[in-house]
């Protein structure tokens, strides 16, 4: 009996001991694999660095999907950019397209056929070779069509935004494989921004996705669920691949051992072993995380500069000015001359008369003290915006457009010129004696919008106009400006950057984002007609200098006619820890745009 008891005790001890040992055992972090350099790899021009280290970044939202055919948000596209590549990529320092999965292109005599040479001997992140088949497959995914069995209508097989984008000159883009490493594209008409547009397409792995293509379930692949349960399914050619994804917390990426870039000494990029994105929605929390050293880099808004900068001494980081924001912010008037279903005009005809007069819009901008806005709301960290293209977009921004300085007297002159008059109390009336007043819609919930609206009301009061500010939630505002058109004026912003050909919907009179008067069947005004003609010209203008000239002219027309009253362009700041090497700052891209070249000398910064 005693023996038995001691036996059980020993067994129990052994059992407990082994259990403890097992539960104390760490799962080893996968070692980085260094594969021999082979194939037609790109050599980065950066300074030579060392492998190792992790970079911790912050994302404000969760990735919605990992499938480039499904529309996602900003974080989604950032992450996809780490995992997948397109044929060419835009270099924000050289301001031109440089090779990515393709090495070069040749244009035919008639300038409609593009022969694209692909990189030879490179592999997907699972080791499978990359060939022309993958490129053809990618375009099949975006552009193949099916016939609707009921209506007989031709529809995209997998609806995505690319379908419209690659309809050039009224016809779908044609593409074919020439050999294993060459593909050919054919456009129906001359199309200048072709290389720009083709670079929107992330190339997908045929060997992984073909069966879903055939099953018609392509759009429900590579979801966030895939990333959680089987991240190894999501493969790409980009510098990183997914190691693990914890929803609500972070996504962990590791270096892709098959990435196609190397440095001058034949070390495969990226230098970083691991890349971490923490999801932090609250912008204050984001800044705190960076300022206390818990992340390596983040964007910093001008109002936080004063307290974040001194923390850099403790946590060894610097805050760098990146230059102007790439987006634009503006006020606009509803110029829609149409009527709603009940036959009621969208805009009160009296007001539409004022708004449609160019002098009225110019007078409003002359009365707006944009410098005062910069000094009070942006702490001086912004610039007055004069064009529809932000100065951040160095290549396409026209610095010599019409400019409207703060000049209330000029503003009053313009009103008098229109036949308006002032009464004894300085209130403004139009020629028929109507008091000049209008409603101004502002998206609520943002303190800078509220401050701007208050200032605008005050500037208008000074020139005798009664501005009625209304705060609306975002979706109500969108409905008013996109569907019901029942508003006088509103304010908003657009993000921008790169080739302006992507802004078709805004610039052309038939575009749905031509917000002051969208989707016009015929250009409603003479100047809109001029812009449309110029737009068609630039699409066919293959000389880059001349094309730039046309855009400068279009920008100038916009600044003269002022369908959008441009406000200000805030300066942007980014913080990054000082130990990171090869950091190159440019206003056109995020501070870590060349993430595959960044490296860190210290060896102790690991998972």
């Amino acid at each position, binding site marked *: 009996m005693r023996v038995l008891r001691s036996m059980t005790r020993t067994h129990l001890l052994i059992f407990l001991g082994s259990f403890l040992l*097992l*539960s*104390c*055992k*760490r*799962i080893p*972090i996968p070692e980085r694999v260094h594969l021999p350099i082979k194939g037609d790899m790109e050599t980065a021009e950066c300074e030579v660095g060392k492998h190792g280290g*992790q970079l911790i970044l912050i994302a404000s939202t969760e990735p*919605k*999907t990992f*499938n480039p055919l*499904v*529309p996602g948000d900003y974080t989604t596209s950032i992450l996809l950019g780490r995992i997948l590549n397109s044929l060419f990529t835009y270099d924000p320092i050289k301001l031109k397209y440089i090779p990515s999965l393709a090495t070069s292109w040749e244009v035919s005599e008639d300038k409609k056929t593009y022969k694209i040479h692909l990189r030879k001997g490179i592999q997907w992140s699972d080791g499978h070779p990359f060939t022309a088949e993958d490129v053809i497959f990618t375009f099949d995914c975006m552009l193949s069509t099916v016939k609707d069995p009921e209506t007989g209508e031709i*529809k*995209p097989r997998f*609806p*995505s*935004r690319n*379908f*419209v*984008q690659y309809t050039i000159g009224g016809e779908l883009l044609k593409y074919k494989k020439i050999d294993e490493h060459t593909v050919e594209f054919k456009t129906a008409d001359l199309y200048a921004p072709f290389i720009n547009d083709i670079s929107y397409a992330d190339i997908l792995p045929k060997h992984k996705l073909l069966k879903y293509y055939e099953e018609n379930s392509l*759009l*429900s692949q590579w*979801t*966030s*669920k895939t990333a*959680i349960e089987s991240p190894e399914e999501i493969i790409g050619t980009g510098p990183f691949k997914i190691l693990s994804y*914890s*929803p*609500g*917390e*972070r996504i*962990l990426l590791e270096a892709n051992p098959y990435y196609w870039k190397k440095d001058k000494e034949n070390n495969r990029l990226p230098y970083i072993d691991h890349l971490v994105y*923490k*999801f*932090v*929605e*609250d912008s204050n*929390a984001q800044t*705190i*995380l960076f300022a*206390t050293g*818990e992340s390596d880099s983040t964007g910093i808004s001008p109002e936080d500069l004063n307290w974040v900068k001194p923390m850099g001494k403790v946590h060894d980081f610097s805050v760098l000015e990146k230059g102007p924001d790439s987006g634009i912010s503006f006020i606009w008037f509803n110029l829609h001359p149409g009527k709603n279903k009940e036959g009621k005009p969208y805009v009160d005809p009296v007001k539409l008369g004022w708004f449609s007069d160019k002098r009225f819009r110019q007078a409003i901008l002359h009365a707006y003290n944009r410098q005062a806005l910069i000094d009070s709301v942006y702490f001086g960290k912004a610039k007055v915006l004069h064009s529809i293209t932000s100065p951040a977009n160095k290549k396409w921004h026209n610095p010599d457009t019409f400019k409207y300085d703060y000049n209330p007297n000029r503003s009053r002159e313009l009103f008098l010129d229109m036949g308006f008059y002032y009464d004894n109390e300085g209130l403004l009336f139009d020629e028929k004696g109507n008091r000049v007043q209008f409603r101004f819609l502002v998206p609520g919930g943002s303190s800078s919008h509220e401050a701007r609206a208050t200032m605008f009301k005050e500037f208008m009061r000074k020139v005798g106009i009664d501005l009625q500010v209304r705060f609306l939630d*975002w*979706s*109500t505002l*969108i*409905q008013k*400006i*996109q569907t019901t058109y029942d508003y006088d004026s509103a304010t*908003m912003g*657009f993000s921008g950057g790169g080739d302006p050909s*992507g*802004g*078709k*919907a*805004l610039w052309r009179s038939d575009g*749905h*984002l031509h917000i002051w008067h969208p989707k016009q069947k015929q250009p409603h005004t003479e100047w809109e007609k001029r812009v449309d003609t110029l737009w068609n010209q630039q699409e066919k203008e293959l000389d880059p200098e001349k094309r730039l000239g046309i855009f400068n002219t279009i920008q100038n027309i916009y600044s003269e006619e002022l369908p959008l009253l441009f406000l200000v362009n805030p300066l942007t700041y980014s913080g990054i820890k000082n130990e990171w090497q090869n950091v190159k700052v440019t206003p056109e891209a995020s501070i870590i745009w060349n993430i595959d070249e960044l490296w860190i000398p210290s060896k102790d910064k690991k*998972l």
Partner: protein
Amino acid sequence: MISFLIRRFISLGFLLFFVSILVFFLLWLSPGDFLAEASIRPDIPESFIEEMRQNYGLDKPWYIQYLIWVKNAITLDFGHSMSYNIPVMDLIAQRLPATFLLSCTSMLFVWSIAIPLGILAAIKQDSWFDKTSRFLASITMSIPEFLLAVLLLYLIARTGVLPIGGLTSVNHEFLSPIEKILDYLHHLILPTLVLGTVGISGMMRVMRANFMDYMREDFVRTARAKGLPEGTIMFKHVLRNAINPLITSFGFAFSSLLSGSLLVEKVLNFPGLGLLIFDSFMKEDQYVVMASILMSCTMLVFGNLLADILLAWTDPRIRSSAK
């Protein structure tokens, strides 16, 4: 008992039906839909938006959309999230464990501190302990939760003892099982403190007041006269009576187990359900909204049911009246 449960379940069915129809109708009334945001992005063509609208069925009248939803919901298919393109239940399941964990720790924290403190304050009425605890309770009750969160966050950022936000460390998945548990606990301290502190003061005051009421009852005097030991009187007789209202409030607390706390999740960056549900409300990702509302309704009903059963267990009077 059985008939009582059956009645409860039938009423739950009706409740869910009416709530779902109301929510669907209200979502339809609110301006815009899920695609509103995409429609002002210059890089998304309008024809694609229209196509998506048809795919999601958003072009149909709301009652048709509702009927389709009900038909699928009966087979436990609650639809797909529009922003994440995966089934709603999968999406909620991703966030459920963290929310449940935090709700449990903060409830445990509140109950295990508030009840003993409340009893102690009642027994030692008007002592220095009672006075300080009453004073502290008033202070914590009047501090808004978000201020407390930010204050604690500031303190932690200065001292660096606890992690700022999140549920796990970056290297979590490579830790050993024991280290994993410790890592969870380490991260749970701060959100539990924030969520719990306000709850403690409220519950403690309720407990103290109740306990004092019952201490003055006749049966206490009788028990004392009978010569029962003081401990038996307090913990066997008074406590069982005084705890009744807290059990009712447990029913409500139970319903909030799975609803998440928007504030703590946002400020302390906790990966729970609250932010997900809030975002889907804002973006009108309607099937996620529907599923989360129905879930909290069901939890509320179950919570109350649980409270009723517990009450019957602690209080024989309820049992006999039910018969």
